[in-house]
């Protein structure tokens, strides 16, 4: 007994670094990536996404096949590009878009993250579509195909419905856009979020879906439902800047206008 205790101690000391990395490192890193992704989104801060992308690069330089790093590299760059688009920073958009697209393409080849990466790739294409309507014919078809593939790979992925809903909401009715259809997609997304394991490797989008439900309701003129959705979003993420400082005050001011 004593001997085996000694042996265990020796083994522990000798392989301590390996244990440390494998028992905690893998999950710890994924959790760190998730946490940074979450922080970046709610603070709407491209710097955090750049840090996230940099961390992913370091992981990938060390471990080329790290699927989580591959995915979060794609995700962080997608967010950097979308922030650039909102800020109308064309230089940044042009610089990071190829990185975002390439990373999403690479990640979609990994079985574990294929469904999620295809969803991010579709979201990237949506930005191109928003910038240049002349590409609508080919790109919209590609977006539908990617979202369809993502759904087949993982029917429980709520982000497919989130992205599809956003596309439906922002597409003119003549091209198949519809706020009602978008709301239906968001509702499906919420159902899937509710059923999702919070420990899964990718978990972004819940509060964002609620925000988009609010926007869709605003578009439909249903200001009360919009306010409720924004409050739900804040309940889920109290520091959700987009909702807290922009969407909720807007709808509340409109509601006040209606009351008067």
């Amino acid at each position: 007994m004593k001997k085996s205790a000694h042996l265990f101690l020796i083994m522990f000391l000798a392989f301590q670094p390996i244990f440390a990395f494998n028992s905690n490192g893998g999950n710890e890193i994924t959790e760190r990536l998730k946490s940074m992704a979450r922080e970046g989104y709610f603070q709407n801060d491209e710097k955090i996404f750049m840090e996230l992308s940099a961390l992913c690069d370091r992981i990938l330089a060390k471990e080329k096949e790290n699927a989580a790093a591959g995915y979060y590299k794609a995700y962080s760059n997608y967010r950097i590009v979308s922030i650039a688009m909102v800020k109308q920073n064309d230089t940044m958009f042009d610089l990071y878009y190829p990185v975002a697209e390439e990373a999403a393409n690479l990640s979609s080849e990994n079985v574990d993250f294929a469904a999620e990466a295809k969803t991010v790739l579709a979201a990237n294409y949506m930005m191109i579509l928003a910038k240049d309507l002349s590409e609508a014919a080919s790109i919209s078809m590609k977006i539908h195909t990617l979202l369809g593939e993502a759904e087949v790979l993982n029917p429980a992925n709520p982000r497919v419905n989130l992205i599809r809903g956003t596309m439906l909401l922002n597409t003119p009715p003549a091209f198949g856009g519809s706020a009602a259809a978008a709301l239906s997609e968001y509702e499906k997304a919420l159902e899937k979020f509710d059923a999702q394991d919070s420990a899964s490797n990718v978990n972004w989008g819940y509060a964002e879906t609620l925000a988009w439900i609010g926007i869709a309701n605003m578009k439909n003129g249903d200001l009360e439902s919009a306010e409720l959705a924004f409050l739900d979003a804040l309940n889920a993420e109290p520091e959700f800047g987009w909702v807290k400082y922009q969407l909720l005050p807007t709808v509340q001011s409109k509601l006040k206008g209606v009351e008067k």
Partner: protein
Amino acid sequence: MKTNFKSFLLLCLFFASINYAQTKIIVKGNVVESSGIPLPYVNVYVENTLDGAMSDEDGSFTFSTDSDTTITIIASMVGYKSEKKVFEVKPGNKEINVEFGLAPDTIELEEAVVMGSSFSSEKEKGIIISSMEVMMTPGGAADIYQSLKTMPGLTNVSESAELYVRGGDPIETVTIIDQASIYHPYTYESSYGGLFSNLNTAAVDAMYFSSGGFSTKYGNVLSGVLDISTKNEPINQRFDLGISMAALQLNAEIPIVDNKFGMRIFGMQSFTKPIMWLNGELDEFTTTPSSNNITALISYKYSETGRMKFTGIFAADAQGVKIRRAEYSGAFNGNSNTNFYNFQLNDVLFENTFIKSSVSFSQFENLWRLGVLDLDQTDGTYKLRMDLETTFSKQLKMDYGIEGEMRNQHYVGAIPESEFDIRPDAEKVVLDAEIIGQRIGVYGELTFNNIVGIKKLHAIAGVRSDHFPQLNLTSFDPRFGLVYKLSAKSNFRFAWGIFHQLPDTRLFVPTDGNPDLNSMKAEHFVFSYEYRGNKNNSIRLELFQKDYTDLPLEDENINYNNDGFGYARGLDFVLKGDLPFNLDGWLSYGYINTKRKWMDFDKLTSSGFDITHNLSMILKYNINAMWQIGLNVKYSSGRPFTPIESSEYLADRKIYEPLYGANNSERYPDYKRVDLRVTHLNQLFGKYFAVFYLEGLNILNINNLFGYTYSTDYKQKEKVLSYFGRRTIVIGTSISI
């Protein structure tokens, strides 16, 4: 044994503790661009570890790592080359200080912003006009040239597609497609110029147009450059079908190997009969104008940096127009064929040099028949061109290159001996003239950013030389440009340069020209202010002066000498982007004063291109996402012309000879035109993207003049309307599959 084990255990613990106590080391430092500016957001890390940090706004970083005897620190960032530094860690080292200077990763493919007076579809070059805007410009017929003519710097001399740049003759502007020169890029080319482009707008990736002060890259051209890049391999498969009252169009974009190899084919057949019938113009033609063109692009990306591309344009047209002249009425028949082949290879050499090279051949054939005029023309151009761009640092870049061109023009047939007598039995000059011209051009220019330590000051300086072996002529053209950025959004620019170009090659024919003519010369001064709110919104004011010397001038003894001269001076203004009341579009105004003493003008006189005021206003209003309405309002001063004051009867030839007044002493009435376009976007069968449009050209039916036709004795004159001198309605659709 027990003691031994205890000792071993203690030893292990001791070394483990040393391991953790001694090897933590702080890595700190700064990252700057090669120009010395701090670079934020750089990923600095130790190779094969997760230890690292991102540089902050000042470019500084700090992190700790477990030291080894040797550590490799890497700095990397999107858009920059990664840099790696290796450190030997000596015992006792607690801190490493490291400085990185990152160089740009990609070579700037776009030209520098410096040269004044340009607008293009490429960003950072000034005012932007995109291929989508070309497609949607009311009255622009989705044509590159017709749409460009709504921009400043282009004078509205006629409704043809030819580009009259700041008082320059159309031959003073060159069209370049994927590095190859094309001298006949138009359909329906007559002596008054062509009407539309042979190159399909959908094939265009980027356009760069300069109306003065352009780079030394462009030689043997005096006034303007239209440099077009076509699209590379498609990413997505796409088919477009377009049909209107004037044309049928079919486009196919087919990726063959994803992101590597693909082709695009754009085909168009025009048939103007329905439109002529609808607009009551059928009786003015013996053969209603028709044309067809195919643009084919095959592109192969053979490596991360290398691409080869074939560009082919094949076009043909035919027309028979009834002409009424004082001495003769008949039909002008014109047919033409254009074949253009270009093979281009792009790659990166030595990591910092981008090379573009092309081999091209273009062949133009046409025939003109009207009375005694019976002329066949062939014009073939072989060209070899190589452009290199070496980036030494963020501050210094060099562009240099070489081009060789051989042009072979052949005229066979008969032309009237007297301009005023084109009757079938009139006296004629029989022609069989072949003119072969060769040119070798070299250029080099340096772009300096942040010169003399001034971050906002950028400059380009370069020189080019062109040599014409057969004429034993050599020209040297120094050019210079300066930009001072007042802010991220506004700048002042100045450009100066010398430009040379050979006169029309027909003037070198020994019988009625002068084989010893020299190149024409122009000196440009361009000064501009530009403000760009964002990619879509901009405003620019530009002042220019262009002085011509060595222009060809008629000479009693040697037919032509080089004593002609002239000038063009004026200002251009353009406001482009989002306008009040949910409108967008652009407003462009140009003022010009240009005079020349050249050809048969023996005094300094307003040239035929002296259109004092040019105003274009393109307004588009998005009613909703599905409907858009657009207006194109044009106004320009009347074109100068030389009046016929009387005539003299030539009894032996039984014809009146017109006697002209002072050169260009009168002007046609001002040109006014309003075009309207209504566009409806929709989706067919739930999946096909469709555009429906209705276009009204000259909707106010303003009878603009092309010129006058005269009675036999020239005592009475009658108006001849311009191409679009009557209201014309076109309806069409385009469907993407």
